[in-house]
Structures are given as C-alpha cells and as structure tokens.
C-alpha cells in the first residue's frame, strides 16, 4: 500500500514535471522541470531498491548533466522560445503517432498487469553488488564505455573551441 502511494505520488510529480517541460517556453524552466523529473525518478528507483542507481541518478544527471544544460542556457543567454511553424509533419503526423503508439503500449501493458508484481525495495542494489557485476561480467562494455567517454571529451573540446581562438597571450607567455 505504502509502495503504491509513494509510486503514485512520485509518478505524478514525474509526469507533471515532464508535461511542464513541454509547456514551458523558457529553456531554464524546462531544465528545472527536468531536474524535478529526475529527482522524483531517483525516488522511484529507491522504491525498486536500486539505491545506488538513485544516488548516481541525482549526482550525475541532476548534479552534472543538467547543470551543464543550465550553464549552456546561461552562456548562450537563450530567451523564450519562438513559436515558428517549421514543420507540419511533426504536428500532423508525429504527435498523433506518438500518442497512438503510447496508448497502444500502455493498453497492452495494463492488460497484462497481473503477471508480475514487485515488492518495495525487492532488489536492493548495493554498490558492492553493482560494482562486482560491473567489473566482472560487464568489464569489457565498461572499458569500451570509458573509451567512448574519452572520445566524447575530445569531441566536445574540439567542437566548442573557437577555430580562430588564439592562445591567451597574457602574462604567462
């Protein structure tokens, strides 16, 4: 019961945040809505027992990735969104398509809802368990991911640096 209540409360916050993300015109508001979604998702993870995932969700997503978003919004001084009409396809074809697909999936899932239930914190994902799995069974993907991150860092640096940037000719040089 407690589980269901908590699920519904934080699920509602989640959905509200997601819808607010769509409704807000200013990117900062959208970003904060997304932070809310992520934070409440972390709670949902906790309900499922994935406490390490929840902590990392907060630290990495809410604490780092979204800060980066906010930083970029501030850096580019992005204003409120202009409502240009660039694409009819997106509105006419895409949105109904998404809604139809989502409804279909939801219908199917809810129809089969009796097949599986989970208890509160049924699979406690302690850091030790996750770490053991990560460094034994998933060692190769882990290493490959580290290479991916390295490449991403270099890519980001190259992309964001101005092509005509000169080295700062200050006191050091």
């Amino acid at each position, binding site marked *: 019961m407690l589980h269901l209540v908590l699920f519904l409360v934080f699920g509602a916050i989640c959905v509200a945040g997601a819808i607010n993300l769509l409704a807000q015109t200013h990117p900062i508001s959208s970003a*904060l809505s997304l932070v809310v979604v992520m934070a409440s998702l972390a709670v949902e993870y906790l309900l499922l027992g994935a*406490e390490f995932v929840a*902590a990392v969700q907060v*630290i990495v997503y*809410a604490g*780092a990735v979204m*800060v980066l978003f*906010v930083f970029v919004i*501030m850096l580019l001084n992005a204003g409120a969104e202009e409502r240009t009409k660039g694409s009819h396809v997106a509105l006419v074809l895409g949105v109904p398509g998404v809604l139809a697909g989502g409804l279909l999936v939801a219908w199917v899932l809810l129809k089969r809802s009796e097949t599986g239930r989970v208890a509160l914190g049924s699979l406690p994902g302690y*850091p030790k368990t996750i770490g053991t799995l990560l460094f034994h069974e998933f060692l190769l993907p882990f290493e490959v991911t580290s290479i991916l991150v390295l490449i991403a860092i270099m890519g980001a640096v190259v992309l964001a640096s101005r092509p005509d940037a000169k080295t700062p000719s200050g006191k050091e040089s």
Partner: protein
Amino acid sequence: MLSLRIFIIASVIKTVLVIFILLTAVAYTVWLERKVVGHMQNRWGPTRVGPFGLLQPLADGVKFLLKEDLTPPHVYKPLFIAAPMIAVICALTSIAVIPFGTALPIRGYSIPLQITDVNIGLLVILGVTSIGVYGVALAGWSSNSKYSLLGGLRASAQMVSYEICLGLSLVGVLIVSGSFSLREIVQSQGGHFWGFIPKWNIFYGGQFIAFFIYLMSAYAETNRIPFDLPEAETELVAGYHTEYSAMKFAMFFMAEYANMITVACVATLLFLGGWSGPLFGPPLLVAILPTFWFVAKIFVFLFIYIWVRGTLPRFRYDQLMAFGWKFLFPLAIANLVVTALIVAYRSSL
C-alpha cells in the same frame, strides 16, 4: 530495535536539535571568522555587542529580518525567490546523514547521534551538494544582471569541475574503508599505528594527498577564498547575490557557512577519524567525549578555512580552471590508482 513511534519522536527531536545547533554554529562561525580575520589584520573584530561581541550574530540576524526585502523589477521572479531557498535547503539537508558521535544511551534505548543512518550516506551528501549548485546558478541567471549572470556562470562551471576532484579524492578513502556508510568509515579508523599514531585516513597510505585535494575542492565548492570568484567583490560587485538583500541574502550567507560546516564534517569523518579520540572519566563524560572530539576537529578545520581566507589572495579564473583540470584532476587519479594498488597488495597478503 526501535518502535516506529519512538523512531519518529526521536527523529523529530534530533532534526530540530541538529538544525538549531547548525544554525547557531553558522552564526558563530561568522563571528569566529570576523574575529580571527580581525586579529590577523591587527584589529579587534566585533566587540561592542555583548562580551567579545558574542551577541553580534544575533544582532545581525535581527537586522536581516527587519531590513526591507527588495526585489528589483527586472528579475525573473519565481526563480529569484526560489534560488536562495534551494541553496539553503540543500545546505541544511546534507547534515542529515552526518553522525556526530557514537550512540547515546537514553532510557535503555541506544539513540544514534545522527538524524538518519543510510548506508550510502556519502553519496547522499554528494548528491545534495551537487543540487546546491542550482541555487547559485539560478540566482545569477534570474537576477537579470550581467554581474550576477557572470557570477552564476562562474559558479556552475567551477562547481561542476571541482565536484569531480572532490569525488575522486573521496574514492581513495572509500577503497580503504570499503563502505559508503559514514558511520562505518569512522569505525574503520579506530585504533592506532604502532600504539600512538591515530589510525586516521589522513595518515594512511597516500591519503594525505587525498586530503589536500579534498581541501582544495572544498574551498572551490563553497566559493571560499582563494576560489571565491563567483562572488568576487572587486570584479563582480558581489557576483550571484548582487541583487539580493535582507533575508534572501541571509539565506545565501547561511547556505555558504552551512556548507562550510558540512564539508568540515565530511573531512573530519573521512580523514580525521570522526569522533574517535581518547576517552576517559565517568560514563557521562565517556558518552559526551566523542562528540567533543568531533566538534573540536571541525573547529580546527574551520579555523584553517578562516586562516586561509586571511592570508591568500584570489586566483584568476583561468588559473582556477587550469589548477582544477590540469593539476588536481590528474593528481586525484594518480592517488586513486596508487591507493587501489596498495589495497589490492595488502588484501593479497
């Protein structure tokens, strides 16, 4: 095992008590800073209100409360109001998982001196402090002023950067102690090397380097000198809180000092052995002494904070970033690797 009722009662009492103590500590940390810096600069600091100016924080608090709450017309109001709240709430929340001492035996119940003991306590602190960045960043952005914006930009970039070094410096300790639970980390530091050196993490292996990295990162995370660029008075007027006044300003102020205390607590717990120290005397004293040692260590750490403030100049922004990414970050990685190798070697013996 505590019953739910007693658990709730104890929790509420502990929460109120801790927040009261924390706010008081914040107030007197400010007094301490003014006093210490004053003496360092060959002046007296606050002396007029109460003996040694001990009532000065109270007077300041009253002043903040009574001042007109000015909201400039050009700000983005919802966030302008929300930003200081985010800052102060995050600062106060992180204290929840910090243990102050061993369990206190009251009426047959063993009440742990800690609001809540989660086994990923350290991660909670990291998560909450990382959320705290939003307070500063949003304050800077919503003020709609170029000084504030620059302050907010600097704050978010600086804090995200140094959070990495901060986290990496802690990983060494985590490897040594093998737990995320702050209580277990403290317990792993009990005992002595060769009978007289306390078995604190700071003395263990290469963790002194980790402590140094943590110290640097902590100064940057709390926007303190020498890394106080987001609020540098001389260049950005006051950075992200230029447009703030009265209680909203006080909230940022409180958040900053509360954060200082939090990082001091974490440093004490992780590197300085927490509440461990010589225990002697009657049982009551034995029960209280750990907390005393804990507070004493925090005091030392805070004193170093103030000492640094009184002696070091401010870094330039590119120096700050270069220091973080090109010196601290590789150092932290190296420390991590060396620690891991040592632990692996010891466990293989």
